[in-house]
């Protein structure tokens, strides 16, 4: 593994029956925030689960923080330095937020009671739950519950933070706070963030990986993905059957993505446009070679 590489995947495949959830993916990730974008069923969660050591690949090599998660010792070493926010985290609803995070801290080998309690308080304060930390989880809102899970992931200042759709259900203020928290961690460590929110990727990520059907469609800087969409986004007063994606905006005009007709009024693309364009092309070419416009 190269210096600075935290997560390295080589030809990793995971199948469920005849479906390849992850299909021969190779990636190398380092410090900072990497965003993982893709539609439902793209394989994002399966990929993150393998990186988080809770799922073994069928084939290929995975190395995380310099260790092999396929070996018990390697897995233990990784888990000591890992923070994980699963897609469907689950809670013990009758516990208070404090007791739940404290329990996870116990499992994370924080044995000194007072130091552990101080760390639990720190992470709950960091996610803005200091006022409600002694309320039962079942009495908290959905956004607060997700912040409880984020708090447990932050325990012990992990070197690798794997977050699977952590921001869904958060209100705008909570989302801003979430971004602050994640960017602070990413200053020194690696954060891998799966999301459906392209604005989170634009705001947080130095790198974006777009997945669909178990494969990587794009791997690079968000700006590189946006560049690829230049000349492919336009506005018009009516929908165009030639557009791959189109929708009516609040101004009453249509925003269209695809191959514009001659004389179309081109506009500057956003990351979301580029993402939709990429997915649209992949859908069109479902049975043929997958285009990889974002790759060098």
């Amino acid at each position, binding site marked *: 593994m190269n210096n600075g590489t935290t997560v390295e995947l080589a030809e990793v495949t995971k199948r469920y029956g005849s479906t390849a959830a992850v299909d021969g993916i190779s990636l190398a990730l380092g410090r900072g925030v990497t965003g993982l974008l893709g539609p439902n069923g793209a394989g994002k969660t399966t990929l993150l689960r393998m990186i988080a050591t*809770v799922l073994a690949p069928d084939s290929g090599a995975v190395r995380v923080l310099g260790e092999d998660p396929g070996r018990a010792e390697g897995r233990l070493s990784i888990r000591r330095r890992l923070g994980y926010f699963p897609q469907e985290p689950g809670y013990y609803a009758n516990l208070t937020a404090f007791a739940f995070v404290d329990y996870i801290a116990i*499992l994370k080998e924080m044995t000194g009671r007072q130091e552990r309690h101080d760390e639990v308080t720190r992470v709950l304060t960091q996610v803005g739950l200091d006022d409600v930390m002694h309320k039962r989880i079942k009495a908290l809102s959905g956004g607060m519950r997700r912040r409880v899970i984020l708090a447990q992931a932050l325990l012990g200042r992990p070197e690798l933070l794997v977050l699977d759709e952590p921001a869904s259900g958060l209100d705008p203020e909570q989302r801003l706070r979430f971004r602050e928290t994640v960017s602070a961690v990413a200053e020194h460590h690696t954060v891998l963030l799966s999301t459906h929110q392209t604005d989170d990727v634009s705001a947080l990520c130095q790198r974006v990986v777009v997945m669909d059907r178990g494969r990587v469609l794009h791997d690079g800087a968000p700006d590189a993905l946006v560049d690829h969409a230049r000349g492919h986004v336009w506005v018009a007063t009516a929908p165009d059957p030639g557009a791959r994606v189109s929708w009516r905006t609040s101004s009453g005009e249509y925003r269209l993505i695809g191959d514009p007709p001659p004389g179309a009024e081109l506009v500057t693309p956003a990351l979301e446009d580029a993402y939709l364009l990429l997915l649209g092309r992949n859908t069109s070419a479902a049975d043929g070679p997958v285009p990889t416009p974002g790759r060098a």
Partner: protein
Amino acid sequence: MTVEQTWHADADVLAAYVAGRLGRATAASLEAHLLACASCRAGIAPFAPSEQLAGNLAVLHSRIDAPPAPRTERFLQRLGLPERITRLLVVTPSARLAWLIAVAGAMAAAVIAADVSGSSQRATFAFLVGAPLVPLGVVTATFATRSDPAREVVIATPTPGFDLLLVRVVAVLVPAVVLTLLAALVVPGQGGEGALWLLPALGLATATLALASWIPVRAVSGVLGTAWVAAAMVSVRRAPRTDLIEHYIAFRPAGQAVMVAITLAAAAVVVLRRDAFDLIDAGRTQ
């Protein structure tokens, strides 16, 4: 009563105090002054690291407001169990479900065993066949993925999944066995035969654990439990009512020896396959 102060600390002194650079005597003098001087208290605020103070305040509130551990957890700690085990036992719903099955199963076994008014031999046989199903149910409930909603968070921690499982299984299996043994003892007419279920119970429970490292636990326990009961029914089909126990090989010395062998072999498999309990999908479905 407010006393007008005749002197005020200058900014350098206040900054040195916050930074911990004042000598002990000077710091003590300043602290006494700060208690009485609102002006200096206001003056010290800009030097105080607000983020650190907010953190300290949160810790302070947390220590004051933290509710005591649940009664059950405190009781278990008084018995000498470490906190990581007591918390594990108290918080996880799967453990509570398994406890419930243990108690309900033992009570059911007692009811079966108590039905001695008609045929003592028949009731005892029914008890001996039914009692091993209690630990089997307990192991299955302990293992069940859906009973632990936070399983994916838990499994990604450094505490090995095998250790967690073992603690839970032992914690519920021991009371289940003890309760069922007591059920046999308190009912008249059981005699020494009342413990013949114990080795089959251990064999079934450990075999379930071993096979569950490859196959979903509910399928394993369903097949083994059904096979156990079916074998008992078939073997005593033509046996006289007064000689049922002797006709089921599992309750004869040879059968008991086989159960010991199964228990030991299954325990060895569980240990060898311990890594399989460390992943979310290894041999087990939701």
